[in-house]
């Protein structure tokens, strides 16, 4: 199948879209007064690439059976999921301001009962890849290898501490699921500190390779690199792919970047809010 080319013009469009999504994320968090900052901001480029370039989907028909499936495993970064979906047209951007509020469809961690257009509910870590593998296995039962439906699982690096992650990695390798692509948000932080201090993951690429994955390491903020990796991953059909996306936590707000303290809190003080808005070019607030 011919994949759409990432023209310079499209790359520029994606870059602008990702910026708008980051603005939405920070406004949601400021309004909600709780939630996670680092992961949503650092995954904005990959979410933008997937929803606005790579995935086959239709915001007007969320249950279109032929859509590609995107499974968010680390549900706590849902502000980026919600913001991207809103910008893609799944629901009004104004609804983003209801995040984490009573009665909102935008629960603190994604819940299908409230927002049925989600592929999965998530929050407790380590279970998303299992679900994506199950989806791909079901697809293979029905259509063999003729299906070109893509299954994408988005994982954090911290959740690789969970044993279940490796149970799923083992199964995907065993079953040689060629239409599965995993993105790992390699931002090197988790709630308590830096991943390599809390529970070292390196050599991470070697670990995935040993489990029979096709492994790529990329700059997770470079659309050209993301695109090349996606095209590569699509070309590999005899094993699952993982893209270890090196990201900068809290990307877009230099004062918050690479600081694990921003994993699980939003800007709340007037100073923090001003820093965040200034960095993201949010005016008139």
């Amino acid at each position, binding site marked *: 199948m011919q994949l759409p080319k990432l023209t310079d013009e499209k790359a520029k469009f994606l870059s602008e879209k990702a910026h708008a999504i980051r603005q939405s994320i920070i406004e949601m968090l400021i309004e909600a007064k709780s939630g996670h900052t680092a992961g949503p901001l650092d995954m904005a480029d990959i979410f933008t690439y997937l929803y606005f370039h790579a995935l086959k989907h239709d915001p007007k028909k969320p249950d279109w059976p032929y859509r590609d499936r995107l499974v968010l495993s680390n549900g706590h970064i849902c502000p980026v999921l919600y913001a991207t979906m809103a910008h893609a047209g799944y629901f009004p951007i104004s609804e983003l301001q209801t995040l984490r509020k009573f009665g909102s469809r935008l629960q603190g961690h994604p819940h299908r009962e409230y927002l049925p257009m989600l592929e999965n509910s*998530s929050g*407790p870590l380590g*279970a998303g890849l299992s*679900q994506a593998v*199950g*989806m791909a296995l*079901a697809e293979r039962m029905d259509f063999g290898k003729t299906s070109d439906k893509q299954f994408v699982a988005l994982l954090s690096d911290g959740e690789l501490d969970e044993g*279940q992650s490796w149970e799923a990695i083992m*199964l995907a390798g065993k079953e040689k699921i060629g239409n599965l692509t995993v993105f790992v948000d390699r931002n090197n932080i988790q709630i308590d500190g830096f991943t390599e201090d809390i529970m070292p993951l390196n050599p991470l690429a070697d670990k995935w390779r040993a489990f029979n994955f096709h492994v790529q390491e990329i700059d997770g903020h470079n659309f050209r690199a993301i695109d090349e990796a996606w095209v590569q991953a699509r070309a590999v059909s005899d094993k699952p792919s993982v893209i270890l996306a090196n990201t900068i936590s809290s990307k877009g707000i230099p004062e918050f970047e690479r600081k694990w303290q921003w994993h699980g809190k939003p800007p709340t003080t007037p100073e923090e809010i001003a820093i965040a808005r200034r960095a993201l070019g949010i005016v008139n607030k």
Partner: protein
Amino acid sequence: MINPSQKLNPKLFDKDIEYAEIRKGFGDGLVKSAEIDKRVVALCADLTESTRMEAFKQKFPDRFIEIGVAEQNLASVASGMASMGKIPFITSYAMFSPGRNWEQIRTTICYNDRPVKIVGSHAGVSVGPDGGTHQAIEDIAITRVIPNMVVISPCDAIEARKATIACAKTKMPTYLRLAREKTPLITTNETPFEIGKAQVLFFSKDNKGNEIRADVGIIATGALVYKALKVAQDFEKGNDGVEIKVKVLNLSTIKPLDDDSVWRLAHETGAIVTVEEHQIAGGMGSAVAECLARHYPVPMEFVGVKDKFGQSGKPDELLEHYGMGEKDIKEAVRRVIMRKTQ
């Protein structure tokens, strides 16, 4: 007397009553379900033979996934398959699924509202020699507490087959609790079964054939239903020097609870004994107590495990040691009647 409308096994109280494995009834039902509906798939965590999934695997190899010894993955992979329209059955020992993978069942199956059927084999102390690590006696408590979940504990192999076929037809996440040992065949193919409906298996009639009020109601689930019936029969015949009229309810669906049947039995008898191969805390008896406390409180006695872990032994000696033998049921009946008349 045996409730004739239930069409139970005519050899119910004969010495040569047939025995069969409840888990084998599940295995047969799974194959039948798969023949009826091609969406039915099966996943196992390295216990295909002993959870009686082998026949399905032989017949439908393309619809079977071996997950390996990884029960957490088992639950969530099944959730993913269900989201693509499959009706997955997952099996392991009850101690491991829903024991080890409870959170995955809660989040990725029930919270996610995916119709996965969780089949826990080797439940109860009657697993026997494997010992306490393998004897799931907390599984009813941890499954019935999860919203969306249906919990079924069949009384014999035939009911297990019917329950399997029935739950494959619903969109509900379901826990099906199975025992390891061969147990007496109580029901027949003609015995009615419906998810959510308790059945009266034993009651009393006068000489004219009119049903008369029983002195006590026994509500039993799983393989111990047979012991409850034997107790009812003994009391009816006065074998222990006393005649007591007992009505026996087979509560195979623990959730959703058949509230009507439960409180009506309490209303009729004024005294209830619950019988289950499970911890008393949080189990079927607790579900019955929750119902009766709301609708019609009466004296209750609970036959089950009293806050202990199991151990190695023969099934019957373990049942007696942990207070779930016929003798214990009879004592509970006498106690509850005494309490009601005090």
